[in-house]
């Protein structure tokens, strides 16, 4: 199948996991209703619990490096929101492609005419799946366009799935729902934003405009007049996904060039715009034939408020981590150390988090950082393993903004590692 070919292998594999979960959940429903035939009193609780168990089981089986890193920074407990993020961004592969008539319907609803009346040509067979929709190819005035169409009912199912899984998943992990709600709310908010295509078009235009002067980064042109609540029209960017790109055995020079473009793209946003494309998923980037980085998805944007940005990035700037009082002060501002903590606890968390931030800040310390060296990532994983075993981290800590900021930066580090890029990290420095 053509659709499958363009999906990076890791995604396909991961999605297989979710397909399996899908089957299991389907099975749970069958089990439930057949039991119910004989025992009408059986309540839905049992069914929900079955589902949550299977969903969680499959989530925790996803042991990619990304998850490990997330696990580390999410301090074990926050894994759950992270898993939600994965689950729902990957759930695309469970969705069957939209039928031709539904595509026509979506267009007539928004534009009052079918796609073939709007474009010169329109391919009703989608070329690949996007996170919560599918992508079609069209031609208009000699230009090749990519048209993203959202599956109906996505927003609705995100909320209801979260509601379904939440209480049971919390219980399975043996933690209180109240403690985690703030993180789950953050994830839900971002996920729901992703379903708002009108917002995505506005942001895509705004961000591609703001980032247009960055070297070697290109964006498609967006067409708001051909976009709507469930449709986004943009230029078709021709290029290779990361995995395909790496298969062509690019030179070190080219790897560095792409790596630098990625680094600049992210750090320019974080430190100049204070809002960042928070989905550094390999599928959201294309490497074009003229050696540029194409960015194609602005569905997930995380804004960094000052009360988070300042304490957090002050830690990253050189010097502060050596000043214990200032560091503890910043940790307090970030809810990593609580007011109620005993002096022994303060000492404990200070040490643990200092090590973590120290690792996180490593690429910023020197002008140039070599992401191909395995030591840095080995230390990260080792730290993650250690943290995961510590009972002190059963209680969630850290402000909610960590979820997406960590996801973004560690996602970026992981891609740079895959690229084996040497990057000049001094281009856009934290501003505090």
């Amino acid at each position, binding site marked *: 199948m053509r659709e499958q070919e363009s999906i990076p292998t890791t995604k396909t594999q991961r999605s297989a996991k979710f397909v399996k979960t899908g089957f299991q959940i389907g099975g749970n429903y069958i089990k439930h209703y057949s039991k119910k035939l004989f025992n009408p009193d059986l309540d839905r609780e049992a069914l929900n619990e079955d589902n949550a168990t299977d969903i969680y089981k499959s989530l925790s089986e996803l042991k990619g490096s990304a998850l490990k890193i997330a696990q580390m920074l999410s301090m074990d407990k926050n894994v759950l929101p992270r898993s939600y993020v994965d689950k729902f961004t990957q759930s695309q592969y469970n969705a069957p492609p939209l039928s031709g008539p539904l595509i026509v*319907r979506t267009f007539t609803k928004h534009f009052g005419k079918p796609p073939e009346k709007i474009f010169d040509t329109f391919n009703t067979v989608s070329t690949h799946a996007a996170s919560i929709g599918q992508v079609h190819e069209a031609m208009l005035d000699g230009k090749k366009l990519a048209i993203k169409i959202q599956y109906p009912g996505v927003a609705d199912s995100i909320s209801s799935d979260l509601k379904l899984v939440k209480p049971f998943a919390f219980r399975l992990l043996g933690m209180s729902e109240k403690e985690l709600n703030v993180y789950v709310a953050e994830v839900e908010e971002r996920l729901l934003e992703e379903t708002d295509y009108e917002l995505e078009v506005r942001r895509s235009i705004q961000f591609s405009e703001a980032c247009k002067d960055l070297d070697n980064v290109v964006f498609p042109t967006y067409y708001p007049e051909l976009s709507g609540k469930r449709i986004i029209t943009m230029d078709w960017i021709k290029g290779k996904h990361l995995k395909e790109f790496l298969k062509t055995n690019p030179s070190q020079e080219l790897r560095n060039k792409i790596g630098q473009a990625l680094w600049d793209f992210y750090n320019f946003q974080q430190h100049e715009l204070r809002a960042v494309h928070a989905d550094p998923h390999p599928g959201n980037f294309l490497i074009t034939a003229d050696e540029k980085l194409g960015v194609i998805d602005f569905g997930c944007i995380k804004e960094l408020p000052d009360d988070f940005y300042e304490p957090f990035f002050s830690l990253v700037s050189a010097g502060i981590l050596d000043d214990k009082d200032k560091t503890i002060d910043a940790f307090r501002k970030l809810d990593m150390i609580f007011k109620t903590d005993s002096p022994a606890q303060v000492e404990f968390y200070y040490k643990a988090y200092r090590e973590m931030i120290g690792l996180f800040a490593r690429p910023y310390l020197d002008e140039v950082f070599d992401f191909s060296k395995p030591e840095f990532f080995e230390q990260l994983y080792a730290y993650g393993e250690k943290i995961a075993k510590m009972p002190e981290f059963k209680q969630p800590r850290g402000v909610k903004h960590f979820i997406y900021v960590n996801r973004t930066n560690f996602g970026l580090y992981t891609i740079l590692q895959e690229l084996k890029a040497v990057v000049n990290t001094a281009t856009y420095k934290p501003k505090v």
Partner: protein
Amino acid sequence: MATAEQIRNGYIDYVLTHGEKPKSIYSFVKSLDIQESEFYEHYASFESIEKNTWAELVVETIDAVQQQEIWSEYSSRDKMLSFFYSLTELLKRQRSFIVYSLRENGSNHYTPAPLSAVKPLFEQFSESILNEGLETGELANRKFFTKRYKDALWAQFLFITKFWINDDSAGFEKTDEAIEKGINVTFDLFQRSPLDNLFEYGKFLSRNGAFKEKMRF
């Protein structure tokens, strides 16, 4: 002389304003200021106005979908999906009346009275689509069951219209989902499936029972 359309519009206006049928044809024609004979020229009863309204909507839908350029390229499945998407689009124009007529006429019946004229029309349309699918091999031809395919589609018709009148999602998005999922499942069942193969295998084994005996080691 009042036209059929004027009478119908007058009737729809009346039921939507009053929330019930007029007391009698006499009082109704009086309110329209026409002769009773003019009413009977076009309609036999109030019920027939409702039936006619529905039938016209369905005929209009069938015309509209068949006029699409892409129609001939569609599979049977796509044709049926296209029909329902267009139907719910057209129904929107007269939503108040549709909701009134289905709610008013007891939804307990398998086929609510106002839909009795629609049923043969829809079945005829379904059969022509199903036959195309059977010819191209898109759908499985099963003894006995093939004749019941159209009943499954009629059940979908009733389900989808009832779902739509209760749908409160923006742009009736949930109805779109109900159509996409429901029609796909129905057509999945019409297609050749592992169950057919299982059935065939069972038939084969039972026919070859004697052979099985000899296979014992």
